[in-house]
């Protein structure tokens, strides 16, 4: 009923190819965007910004980058965290070497470095596939984290070996560093994430996206119909690493404020991979749903006992939390192996024909 598409006639090809051909989708998106751009910034507390809104956005962006590579182009990667690290360190070096640089520009540029590194580590994908490629990207993971530790130029020979975000100004307000207000940081993150999401949606719908999907589904067939596999795989690595690198720069500059090399170790790669898998490989929406489940839900569950007045030890809550999130992941993957995005697609299809399923 709510989702009835009857009567929405398309009279031109342009209308039929619009981003959201169903009017209700566009309305829903408008509501979500209003919440993200207007209502959350007005109502959210500092805690909500720092533990829910900002990290969910950043993790969703990182997962989106990985999804381009793994979900759309079918190249399995376990090096996401290392590429995030490249973005973060590149951004740190640019900011400290060129303090006059606009921080948002620096964040967007830092992805270029990770794209370059990503392409280099993507070259093996031309010869090896599947799990073997995963091992090759694992090498990137270990090598780059080692490099972050050993190459002291990267962290300006700081005695503690960590990078610290300085206070960065743009148009007279602090947008990063300890002096920055959470709401400003949130807007910067939201701007970058919205921009790159729009880019990704359009990329995956266009020629490049179709080339990737063909490569993913059957690379020999794709080659036979004239797709250049090298170009297809390397662009996927480049664009994926670019997005992941920008996410890494945001991760340190807009959220954590300081980072040591082992932050970018393999657990972060797995976390991003889980978000992408549980959200749904080969989907953009899924990344956001996955990030809400993996990043947001534990925070909310941690608050729950206190909110309903149950006295439990903090350590116990943490143990329960791990168990609940673990079982939810298993539950969702049994109910819908293709992730939360597929679950939403199913619900939406049912809604469109409801209440007359035949």
């Amino acid at each position, binding site marked *: 009923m709510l989702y009835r598409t009857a009567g929405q006639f398309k009279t031109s090809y342009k209308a039929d190819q619009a981003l959201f051909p169903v009017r209700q989708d566009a309305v829903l998106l408008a509501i979500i965007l209003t919440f993200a751009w207007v209502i959350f910034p007005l109502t959210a507390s*500092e805690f909500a910004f720092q533990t829910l809104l900002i990290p969910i956005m950043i993790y969703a962006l990182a997962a989106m980058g990985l999804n381009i590579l793994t979900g759309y182009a079918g190249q399995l990667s376990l090096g996401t965290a290392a590429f995030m690290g490249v973005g973060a360190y590149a951004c740190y070096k640019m900011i400290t070497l060129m303090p006059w640089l606009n921080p948002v520009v620096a964040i967007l540029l830092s992805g270029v470095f990770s794209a370059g590194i990503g392409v280099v580590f993507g070259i093996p994908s031309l010869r090896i596939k599947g799990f073997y490629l995963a091992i090759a990207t694992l090498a990137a993971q270990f090598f780059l984290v080692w490099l972050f530790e050993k190459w002291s130029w990267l962290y300006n020979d700081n005695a503690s070996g960590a990078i610290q975000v300085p206070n960065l100004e743009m148009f007279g307000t602090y947008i990063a560093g300890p002096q920055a207000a959470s709401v400003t940081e949130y807007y910067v993150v939201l701007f970058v994430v919205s921009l790159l999401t729009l880019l990704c949606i359009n990329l995956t719908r266009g020629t490049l996206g179709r080339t990737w999907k063909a490569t993913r589904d059957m690379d020999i067939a794709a080659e036979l119909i004239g797709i250049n596999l090298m170009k297809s795989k390397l662009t996927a690595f480049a664009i994926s690493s670019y997005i992941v690198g920008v996410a890494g720069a945001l991760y340190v500059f807009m959220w954590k404020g300081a980072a040591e090399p082992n932050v970018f170790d393999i657990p972060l790669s797995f976390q991003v991979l889980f978000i992408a898998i549980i959200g749904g490989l080969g989907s953009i929406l899924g990344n956001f749903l996955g990030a809400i489940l993996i990043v947001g839900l534990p925070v909310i569950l941690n608050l729950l006992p206190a909110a309903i007045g149950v006295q439990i030890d903090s350590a116990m809550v943490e143990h329960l939390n791990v168990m609940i999130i673990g079982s939810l992941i298993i539950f969702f993957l049994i109910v819908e192996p293709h992730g939360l995005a597929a679950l939403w697609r199913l619900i939406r299809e049912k809604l469109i024909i409801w209440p007359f399923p035949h």
Partner: protein
Amino acid sequence: MNKLVKLATATLIAGVTAGAAMAQELYTPNLSYRTGPFAATGIPLMNGQADYMTMLNERDGGIGGVPVNFEECETGYSTEKGVECYEKTKGAAIVTQPWSTGITLQVLPKTNVDQIPILAPGYGFSPMMDGKTFQWAFNMPSGYWDAADMIVQYLEGQGSLDGKKVAFLHLDHPYGKEPLPVLEAAAEAKGFELLPIPVGLNEMQNQASQWLQVRRERPDYVVMWGWGAMNAGAITEAVKTRFPMENFIGVWWAGHDADLRLVGEDGAGYKSISWSYPNQDAPAMKAVREYVTDKGMTKSNPEEMTGVFYGRGIVMSAILAEGISAAQAEYGTGEITASQLRWGLENIDFTQERIDELGLTGMVPPFATSCANHTGNSGGWMLEWDGEKFVKASDLLKPDTAGYADLVAAASGQYATENAPWEMNEACEG
């Protein structure tokens, strides 16, 4: 659907943070880690801290008549959870106890804006000693640079260091790298060769290659900056490679009874510098047993309670309690604010008389903090494992802080420039 969840959360959080500030109490949250890879070392410390505060609540009804709410927020030693806990508690908290060098580094610049004191007893960033620059951060009674200096002093006491070789086995992490500048300066001044051997976070449990290097290089001494699983790994490897244990010295976080109990007699002679000692006969320890243990209010167990780390937890809480009561006396109010507590922590005077009065005899050396000195540089004792427990193996060692005053000034100056605009406490003298 997701927006509903988010909205519900926002209201939920607003409710929780508002509710926490209501009751009349001193809210001193602890960012504990009873889970995760470092839980084994975390639990006795957390238990010691919590039990001392419980004892004060039971015996005296809190501090100055106001009960202490020593709530724990579990981080599992993860910096992400640490930030979550910091944001969750900062609304009502009068102090934050970050409990990891990583979390301290992240929280340090924020406390200057949020104006909440960080209490990091014996850990964190060594230049925090400079109270003028780090006006909200405290790492009394001793910092890592003190520890490095005292270890060098002790080694010198065993004979001239000229021409000797000292291996520095450390965790390859901000924490492990912390004492390097002081050790490097000492190596140059005293003429010994310093050989840093890093242990990666992934190699903590398997240090075969590091100890192979020790065997090849044949250092006269091994100094260790280890934590968590790294300590047990290093100690068992040292026993296996038959390194003379009396030449093996750890920092205070590498002196955990359970790690040494693994090797028992074979570990006899291993040393650890420490600013705390678990004196079982101290009145405070007896009070904890009477008011907390006997009533079944502790999470600890008798074996753990005799250990060095549990005793250290007691001392940490005693320092915080002393800061609180100093602030209460100064401002004439029971319920102090975060900035009043900062004054209290800056004016702790742990004289020997005061230590005896608090019942901490022999558990902590005398020290005093000031506006300009947030560490206090208490010094410490060299503890030695006798095969069953740690015993004091030296008189009180005092760090020669003048030796690295320049380093402190340079490091804190650099920190302030990097984080500009950084508010300094100009009111401080000295």
